[in-house]
């Protein structure tokens, strides 16, 4: 909402200066976005000095001028004026300026092969005089130190731009803003002079509001003004219209706009001669159409509120008028409309047709239904004053009577909500100045809500009115209450926190990427999940919710590889979507690692990152987050986007469906499809939701501390075993020989090839044996050794290597 301070002063008697008014507006909830002079087309013309004028190389009568326009560098302008000479002060117009004389927009152009940046102006070009023989010569004493400044002073009034919240339609008019200021003690609202307008004759174009199932109009007021002379608006009116940032059109249109911004009362003027017999306010039928004032043709759906005559649709009520009945300079008789349209109907229609107008914006928020006559009278007076004519009696048709809103308000609610007290007397004063009718019934105030405040329906609305006018600075600051009823984080929130920092500590940079992604990349990772499309995506390559974190991670990995990074470790923790309903999402960590380990190391051999690098990262992170390494099982069931032979899953139970983590190489087909060029690429993911919550806190789950001081022995074994036999199983077989005595089993060598039969491999393990009761003698150890060998050989097809 834009307006000038002098316009505001038309409605407000105030001793406040401009800055006080600005502060007050913000303090009562009418946020000032800006307060500055409106821009003018003349702002671009600036004072300049010719530093050097030389002859144009290709034209004797033209000059090439180096011009100082106040910046660091001079610019070059081609000029035909005979008086262009060194040291001359003159007026310069940069490219983009509009020359007042011919309304031409300047552009950078070549004149006889030399580029000219802008123009030096004559008095006639600026409409200052008829002098066109040469460029303006400015007086040295006055302009010498003004080089670079605007030549024309901008005398326009400063414009206030308010950001009005959607609950305050009344402040979409200057009068409403003045009323709010007066309630806050910033002055007195001026009362309109009583109109002494003389009416002649009746409004003889018949108006009918049709009773229909869906009727978006409840009141239609109008009057006829006969014998007008439409013309250009007078200067004061043009200035007002321009201060709103709008273009003056004609007196009649400007007046209706002026009244809309002045009183928040949208009006519409029809050329009465173009109305076919009568006005019918009705609901549209699908397929009807009309050409609107914005020169667009609209095809209507059912149940849109239209103003029509016998020939068809004239306009969309409260939204936009039609071309067929529009006023022109030649218009002689006008029909002026002041109506009430239901917000719901306006909103629905304008959304369907995608139209946004100042009238629509206001009706949608709720116009004062009792302002029909006020608007007609104010506009008629102005039309008569500017365009002449005779005004008919006002004709108001309605199908519904306005019902007052009454609120019974207990002043205690104010203190209970805000924490401070305002005397009843002051509270009543505030409400009355806002236009409430207040009567007292014991402690309860009976309030009649003003008709221009559709937002006020219940007692809490009254609290807001009082506290905002009184001022938020009166609210006390209470010390925070520190009581707590629940721990800050639950198990999964802690897990999130631990895993996030644990993964980062393995050298990964955390990133945050969009929750949406490109469906083309997403489908490589979505497995059996449904694709979740966004109906109105921000762009076609962010058109689905991500089913996995990897589409985005790999997209950005590629970007960083393109930036020249070779060794990259990235991860993100966030949602992966499994369905389109609320809650169909999992919290997942996705991590990628590309490049080499020990690149360019002077002492270590560099190598490409591999599956066991990420396996370590994922297992160590899980352990750090509180998961016991002995409680997890590794399996080779993995999603299809992993390399089928070089990836694994981490499970908490043997037959569990969902892994808590996966790790490994990405499928080579995907690397090829995404055209990722790197020496090595491995990934892992952890699904937090699949991790079983530990029911006990650590203080309850710590087991008794047991240790053995008896001598421990280590034995090495090498088995020849089927190539596909999993080392994890071999370790388990050995451990199960004697869970008490066998403290640990470590695989320290795996070998295939020379001396090993085809389809077999050799696995060497180191077994630590220790008793908690005695020192084991050779005999005991021999027995265990034999047991280990026989168990392994019987439970697998392995043979001990001799």
């Amino acid at each position, binding site marked *: 909402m834009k307006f000038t301070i002098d316009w505001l002063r038309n409605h407000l008697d105030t001793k406040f200066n401009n800055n006080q008014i600005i502060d007050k507006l913000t303090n*009562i*909830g009418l*946020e000032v976005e800006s307060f500055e002079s409106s821009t003018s087309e003349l702002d671009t013309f600036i004072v300049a000095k010719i530093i050097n004028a030389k002859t144009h190389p290709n034209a004797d009568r033209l000059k090439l001028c180096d011009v100082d326009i106040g910046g660091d560098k001079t610019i070059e302008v081609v000029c035909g004026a005979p008086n262009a000479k060194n040291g001359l002060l003159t007026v310069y117009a940069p490219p983009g300026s509009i020359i007042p004389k011919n309304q031409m927009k300047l552009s950078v152009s070549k004149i006889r092969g030399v580029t000219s940046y802008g123009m030096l102006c004559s008095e006639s070009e600026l409409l200052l005089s008829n002098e066109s023989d040469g460029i303006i010569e400015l007086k040295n004493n006055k302009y010498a130190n003004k080089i670079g400044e605007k030549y024309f002073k901008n005398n326009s009034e400063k414009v206030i731009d308010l950001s009005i*919240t*959607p609950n305050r339609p009344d402040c979409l008019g200057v009068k409403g803003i003045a009323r709010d200021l007066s309630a806050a003690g910033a002055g007195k609202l001026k009362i309109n002079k009583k109109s002494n307008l003389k009416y002649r004759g009746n409004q003889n174009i018949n108006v009918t509001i049709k009773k229909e199932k869906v009727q978006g109009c409840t009141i239609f007021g109008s009057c006829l003004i006969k014998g007008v002379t439409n013309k250009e608006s007078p200067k004061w009116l043009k200035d007002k219209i321009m201060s709103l940032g709008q273009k003056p059109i004609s007196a009649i249109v400007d007046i209706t706009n002026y009244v809309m911004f002045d009183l928040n009362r949208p009006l519409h003027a029809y050329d009465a001669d173009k109305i076919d017999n009568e006005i019918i306010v009705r609901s549209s039928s699908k397929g009807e159409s009309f050409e609107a004032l914005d020169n667009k043709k609209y095809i209507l759906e059912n149940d849109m509120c239209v103003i029509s005559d016998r020939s068809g649709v004239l306009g969309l009520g409260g939204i936009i008028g039609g071309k067929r009945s529009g006023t022109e300079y030649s218009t002689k008789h006008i029909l002026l409309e002041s109506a009430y349209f239901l917000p*719901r109907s306006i909103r629905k229609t304008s959304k369907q047709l995608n139209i946004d107008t100042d009238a629509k914006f206001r009706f949608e*928020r709720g116009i004062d239904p009792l302002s029909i006559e006020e608007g007609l009278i104010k506009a008629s007076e102005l039309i008569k004053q500017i365009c002449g004519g005779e005004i008919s009696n006002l004709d108001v048709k309605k199908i519904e009577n306005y019902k007052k809103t009454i609120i019974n308000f207990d002043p205690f609610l104010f203190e*209970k*909500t805000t*924490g401070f007290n305002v005397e009843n007397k002051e509270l009543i004063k505030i409400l009355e100045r806002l236009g409430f009718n207040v009567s007292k019934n014991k402690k309860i105030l009976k309030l009649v809500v003003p008709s221009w405040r559709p937002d006020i329906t219940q007692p809490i609305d009254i*609290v*807001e009115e009082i*506290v905002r006018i009184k001022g*938020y600075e009166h*609210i006390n*600051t*209470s*010390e*925070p*209450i*520190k*009581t*707590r009823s*629940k721990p800050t*984080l639950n198990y999964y*929130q802690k897990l999130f926190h631990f895993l996030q*920092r644990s993964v*980062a500590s*393995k*050298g990964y*940079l*955390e*990133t*945050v990427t969009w*929750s949406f992604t490109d469906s083309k990349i997403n489908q490589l990772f979505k497995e059996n999940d449904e694709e979740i*499309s*966004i*109906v*109105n*995506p921000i762009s076609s390559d962010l058109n689905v*919710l991500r089913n996995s974190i990897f589409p985005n991670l790999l997209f*950005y990995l590629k*970007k*960083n590889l393109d*930036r020249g990074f070779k060794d990259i470790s*990235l991860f993100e*923790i966030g*949602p992966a*979507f499994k369905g*389109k*309903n*609320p*809650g*169909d*999402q999992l919290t997942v960590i996705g991590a990628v690692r590309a490049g080499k*380990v*020990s*690149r360019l*190391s002077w*002492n270590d051999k560099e190598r490409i990152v591999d599956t066991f690098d990420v396996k370590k990262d994922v297992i160590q992170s899980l352990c750090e987050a509180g998961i016991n390494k002995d409680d997890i099982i590794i399996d080779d069931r993995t999603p299809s986007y992993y390399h089928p032979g070089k990836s694994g899953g981490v499970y908490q139970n043997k037959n569990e469906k969902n892994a808590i983590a996966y790790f490994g190489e990405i499928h080579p087909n995907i690397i090829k499809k995404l055209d990722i060029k790197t020496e090595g690429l491995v990934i892992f993911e952890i699904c937090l939701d699949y991790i079983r919550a530990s029911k006990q806190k650590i203080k309850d789950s710590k087991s008794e501390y047991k240790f053995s001081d008896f001598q421990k022995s280590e034995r090495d074994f090498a088995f020849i075993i089927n190539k596909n036999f999993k080392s994890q199983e071999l370790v388990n077989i050995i451990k199960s020989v004697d869970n008490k005595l066998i403290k640990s089993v470590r695989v320290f060598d795996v070998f295939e090839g020379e001396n090993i039969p085809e389809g077999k491999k050799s696995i060497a393990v180191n077994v630590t044996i220790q008793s908690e009761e005695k020192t084991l003698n050779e005999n005991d150890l021999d027995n265990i050794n034999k047991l280990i060998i026989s168990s392994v050989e019987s439970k697998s097809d392995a043979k001990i290597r001799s």
Partner: protein
Amino acid sequence: MSDIKKIKDDYIDKLNTENNIEKINNIKSELFGKNGIISSEFKKLGSISAEERKKLASDLNNIKDELQNKISIKIQEIETKEINLKLEKEKIDVTLPERNIEIGKIHPVSQVIDEISSIFSEIGFSVEEGPDVENEYNNFTALNTPDNHPARDMHDTFYLDNNKELLLRTHTSPVQVRTMLKGKPPFKIIAPGRTYRSDSDQTHAPMFHQVEGLHIDKNINMGHLKGCLNYFIKEFFEVDKIKMRFRPSHFPFTEPSAEVDIGYEIKNGKIVIGEGNKWLEILGCGMVHPNVLKNVNVNPSKYQGYAFGIGIDRLGMLKYGINDLRAFFETDYRWLSHFGFDPLDVPSNYRGLSR
């Protein structure tokens, strides 16, 4: 006596000049071996008179101690010398680089969320979460923003179906609805998370982060709201004093509603929070609207309280001098390394919010 004295002096001289460990050992056996010179002298003691024997034995013992002492010192000397020589040869260039260090980082958004959670934890708030996909009811209708409300236009919503039933939450406020529906008052929660609006330019990203706050109890009023936010802002920006302004505004789900500005100034091209005469809007808040309480089965005549919503990314930008919001989500390795935080730098009350 003079015999043994001479032997002693000769050997002390020998030991003084000898530097070979083997030769020293030879001397040792020459003197103290089975048939060594000193050992032989001791054997002679049996054949002399008791009187002489006492004196000679004493002299012999002194000489024996002296020589043995000398030998062991000498051996130690030589060994030390040899070790030092050996270590000198082993010397390496310690200025050669260490094995590669891989430094990971926490994203600024995560760090700021942890800072916020830490601050609110101190005053008894717990953390709640809600889904990113919401239904129309939780995101709008339950929050007193019915379908025909113009406030809906202020949220450019991403929809997942043509009936506009399912959407990406435009704010974290639906977590208020979920929290209150599943529990009983009092409520004292914050809810940080991702939020979405179909808006994309230099200062807007289609995804951003908010933290919701909600405190409902029997007598919570606007004074508590002011106190809570004043405390939070001071703690967050780690300043003693903060210039703060509550300004009336409108949100459908709170009434009265406020926007909060903090004072700032630009000093040497950097923004200084807390002083100055410029205002910067940082959050929206208010008393939870009775209609919202009714929608979640909380009796508004018994319970009341406040709610607030803060833009997390914006707070992070202000605190850590980050200029470009879009860069938060562009995964530029250089940016992540530059603005990221060490994983061990966990915001906490006792260790300090930030390093």
